[in-house]
């Protein structure tokens, strides 16, 4: 059993894992109880497991705990809370931009990454940035509106 140190939502954490190839996803969900991150495919194809690693969106299902060691990880919980949501979360709440909400974690994290790079994207840029995030319920239209709303600073 090896120990891996990383910063999660601003706090230094030490995670025990028997396998350096264990995906970060399981450490977050089980060891740390941060279940905002969701398992969707384990293949890096759907985006449901997206977190920010050193500020950039990354797939936690294909990032190993060893690769994440020493880095700073932000999860959906780390962005904001129901009482004090992050502007992107607030915009999604305002637009009611989720149905089942299972894919939403990855979409929000990807949108936060987009807005960090491109604070005022066009609708097309939002769609392109989210091309790797699958949604089955069909909340896409609201999601795009929510990201644009967050960009416009009208999230809450």
């Amino acid at each position, binding site marked *: 059993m090896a120990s891996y140190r990383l910063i999660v939502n601003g706090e230094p954490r030490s995670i025990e894992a028997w396998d350096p190839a264990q995906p970060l996803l399981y450490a977050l969900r089980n060891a740390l109880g941060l279940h905002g991150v969701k398992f969707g495919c384990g293949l890096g*194809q759907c985006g449901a497991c997206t977190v920010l690693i050193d500020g950039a969106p990354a797939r936690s299902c294909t990032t190993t705990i060893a690769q994440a060691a020493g880095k700073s990880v932000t999860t959906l919980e780390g962005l904001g809370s129901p009482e004090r949501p992050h502007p992107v979360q607030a915009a999604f709440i305002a637009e009611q931009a989720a149905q089942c909400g299972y*894919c939403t974690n990855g979409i929000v994290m990807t949108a936060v990454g987009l807005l960090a790079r491109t604070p005022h994207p066009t609708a097309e840029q939002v769609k392109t940035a989210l091309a790797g995030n699958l949604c*089955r319920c069909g909340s896409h*239209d*609201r999601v795009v509106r929510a990201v644009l709303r967050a960009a416009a600073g009208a999230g809450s």
Partner: protein
Amino acid sequence: METRLYTRRAVLKGGALVVGFSFAGLPLASAQGVAQAGAAPGRTLDQRQVDAFLAVRRNGSVIVYSGKVDLGTGHRIAMRQMVAEELAIPVTRIELIEGDTALTPDQGSTAGSSGVTRGGVQLRQAAATAREALIARASTHLGRPAAELELADGYVRATGGSARISLGELVGDSAFDVPMNPKARLKDPGTYTVVGQPLPRPDIPAKLTGRYVYVHDFKLPGMMHARVVRPPAVAAQLLDYDAGSIAQIPGTQVVRIKDFLAIVSDDEWAAVRAARELKTRWSEAATLIGHTAVRAWARSGPFTNNEVLVNKGTTAALAGSAHALRAAYYWPVQSHASIGPSCAVADVQADHATIWSASQGTHRYQSAYAQMLGLPREKVHLIYLDGAGCYGMNGHDDAAADAVLLSRALKRPVRVQWTREDELGWDPKGPPQLLEISATLDAAGHIDAWETEMWLPTATANLAHVPLLAPQAAGMPQPVGESTGLIAQNGDPPYRAPNVKVHVHWIAQAPLRPSNIRAPGKVANCFAVESFVDELAAHAGVDPLEFRLRDLADPRGVEVLKKAAALIGWQPRSASESRRATQPVATGRGLAYVHYKNNENYVAIAMEVAVERSSGKISVKRVACAHDCGLMINPDNVRAQVEGCILQTISRTLYEETEFDRSRVTSVDWSSYRLLRFPDVPQLDIALIDRRHEPPLGAGEAATAPVAAALANAVFDATGARLREAPFTHERVRAALAQA
């Protein structure tokens, strides 16, 4: 009907333990789930009693017990709105418990767009009955005639006076003990203040901030993680496995029950890795027909029976007619393709079991798990927790069966989550549908005779027999399962036609285990019917909108068609005017209409598409939809459902087919089973028709039905090419263009 002796304490126990819910968005579903498991049964579940549906606490807050569940569809707010309106209390004073077999009445599965239509309407009637009872009681307390009393803000008060008494004082700590009154007067929709408002969903803030507890996130003390090891071929038998092959992975255990094989571990990743690395030997099995053979197979039988669904006038002349138009349409096998692979948690004890499941039918599956466990049905307690959107019976009920078997074997709580490959490979599938339509026009170009012939698997004929995988593999008996939907509906044209016959050949087998998938059967049937109507219009040289309107009598149908056409900016033209053979990218527009199930929603959809001739790529540019579902409880939820219906069905129409060979499903990831992606999403213009004095009809399914036909008709308008087989792959489009 299950009837339990009512005790006051049990109601309060069931309710008081779930106070963690708040509209700030922190439903403590995990605590709720555990608390509900511990709640002693004792509430009445007798749907003839108001107490089955409603309870009032001493503080005046109301608990709603809903057998229907929220599948991401917004029922949590809609059900509250229906009750709040009748009881004149704010929605924030209402808690809702859903899909719990010990606490909520069996209102039937949450399927067929029945949540609001049946479930909500029942709750509304319970609330209206309760209102009458509250006023009668208050009349005694206050010494005022009932006619002078009204409900407002949690009180019964005298009109024009100051005397009042709160709901908590009237009922808190006791039961209504009032039979349901089907004639209890409902509020006049003209006076609604809560129903019809686009109130936000209570679950969204927690879902957006990672606090919501899905069934995937639910944990129990001592819970083990499991992965099922699926065979390499459908119907293969397990010969043996090599436990030594996973010796390097710590803390894992193999469970085998006949052909059911699973890995369990306290550590989820260990279970995942061991399930991948376990060396197994299975028998050869090649029992499937392969997806490319399904269309021809459908006609070959054997058939259980032929059924005539519509027989009006005579269509005898069609068979030999040289003037008749004919076309065949095919819809492939499709997956529910849930984004989250199915998951469930089971805690099986010697004399009872508790199962946390994202099932659409928690009450229905009590029997299946009870039979697996040899327990009486009432000793099996299912509690609904959200899963990923399912759109019909996906793998959730199977995952629960997996967990039941494993928890029984290990005497520990067990969480089973499927893999991506499990979900796309082994979820019960939307069935294939083959339709052939022939028709003749009269001298003026109206439909004279119409015949629809369908070939559909019997296992989808609203019979109840989707077998669960785990008991099947373990060689255990199981009762008949989920009903699979009314897939033969909407096979007749929704326009005036004097001679119509619709008949179906029920195929004895199905190519893969079938189940209900959103708007069962109607997506394909409307695709065929409304594509063929378009073919008739083109043949008659009449504008497709005009062709429909001139033979549509129902004013609600006329309204949605006209509205959708207006939204898209419909310009009348006959098909021959619109072909632009010279342009590399051809654009066109099409429309389609459905009167869902012939007695529910009215939906018209118009679309603009662009077709790239060289590649065969279709881009949907714009979708206009006019939607009439009667009374809308929450228009924003309705809009979300309509958006979802449209986008999901564009995905099914353009991209989706479950591919399989003789042994197994081969489209088991998101590159081989493609879904609509963000860049593919068109502009949506949706008009919701306000019909507040009509019954509510639900919104979860109907708008799916006209999508494929509108899309195909737009492609025809653009190019003259007819697409009669989904999905509309680049290859199929190029082939159709070559024939156009």
